[in-house]
């Protein structure tokens, strides 16, 4: 067993090496856990929607709670115009949530603790929101960068600042999820290492910390998925209902 706290983030290949046009497309443990979470989401919703009972069983209850939660979140933050985007935000939330939660199991791999995964999702959201904004408002979408009521002298400066603020969205969106997941899992592993090195005498204190941190990490895993989804809604709201 290794005591290196960063060892848990290593990506390694499972099965044969697949290379297409010089790009490594091998199946890794990261792909495995993405697949597991996708299958788990499908299984929960398949079981939940198989028979529609008046008094729901566990799976139906879970799927209904998630559905209501996301539907309420979208209507609260982005309004009724965002209803067509419900499937996307719902899948995004479920995928991030399941990846985070599966990462909490011992010996598992946390997909969202890799910045490339979160950055790709954030860049996709960023580009999609920008395209939606331009499709809905044409070049009027550029008004987002020109706040009203600003004196003419300050206008170029404010516009540059607004553009930087707009470009910082995917960065903050991806770094937040990645940093929270990685920091939490590293901390858990470090405290786990303390338990072993302090032994039977002193190991109880870090062990109790570990238990508390596990609870905190489950909260963070849920909260980060929630924040990721709600920020997508907020950005979508800016693109759909332009008011500045």
């Amino acid at each position: 067993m290794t005591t290196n706290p960063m060892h848990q983030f290593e990506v390694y290949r499972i099965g044969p090496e697949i290379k297409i046009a010089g790009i490594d497309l091998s199946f890794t443990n990261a792909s495995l856990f993405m697949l597991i979470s996708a299958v788990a989401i499908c299984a929960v919703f398949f079981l939940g929607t198989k028979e529609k009972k008046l008094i729901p069983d566990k799976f139906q209850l879970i799927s209904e709670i998630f559905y209501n939660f996301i539907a309420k979140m979208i209507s609260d933050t982005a309004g009724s115009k965002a209803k067509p985007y419900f499937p996307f935000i719902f899948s995004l939330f479920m995928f991030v949530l399941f990846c985070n939660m599966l990462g909490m199991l011992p010996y598992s791999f946390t997909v969202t603790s890799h910045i490339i995964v979160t950055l790709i999702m954030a860049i996709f959201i960023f580009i999609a929101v920008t395209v939606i904004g331009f499709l809905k408002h044409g070049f009027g979408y550029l008004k987002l960068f020109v706040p009203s009521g600003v004196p003419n002298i300050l206008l170029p400066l404010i516009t540059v600042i607004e553009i930087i603020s707009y470009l910082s969205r995917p960065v903050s969106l991806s770094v937040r999820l990645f940093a929270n997941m990685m920091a939490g899992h590293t901390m858990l592993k470090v405290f786990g290492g303390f338990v072993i090195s302090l032994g039977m005498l002193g190991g109880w204190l870090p062990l109790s910390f570990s238990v508390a941190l596990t609870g905190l990490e489950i909260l963070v895993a849920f909260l980060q998925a929630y924040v990721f989804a709600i920020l997508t809604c907020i950005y979508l709201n800016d693109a759909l209902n332009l008011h500045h």
Partner: protein
Amino acid sequence: MTDPNDDFKTRLKIAKDKVKNSTRINNNNENSSFMGSAFKLGTDLIAAVAVGTIIGFILDSWFDTKPWLIILFFFLGSAAGILNVIKIAKRMQKKD
């Protein structure tokens, strides 16, 4: 013996009233969204500074004006970060 149908109706009424009067669930929701905003504040402040500095660095190597644009865009990025925080704070106040 009471009619089982009547019994169900009163129970349904009590349950409906409970749902109507319950603000606990809402409170919980608000709480988690405030915690989400708290997580958001820090990263948004830093991300804008980082993006500003990177833009400055790229423009510097394009126009060969090292180190002036990186300094300028660092400050513009800091301003953008503060702007981000002000926007989040406004949104949080609107909820109250």
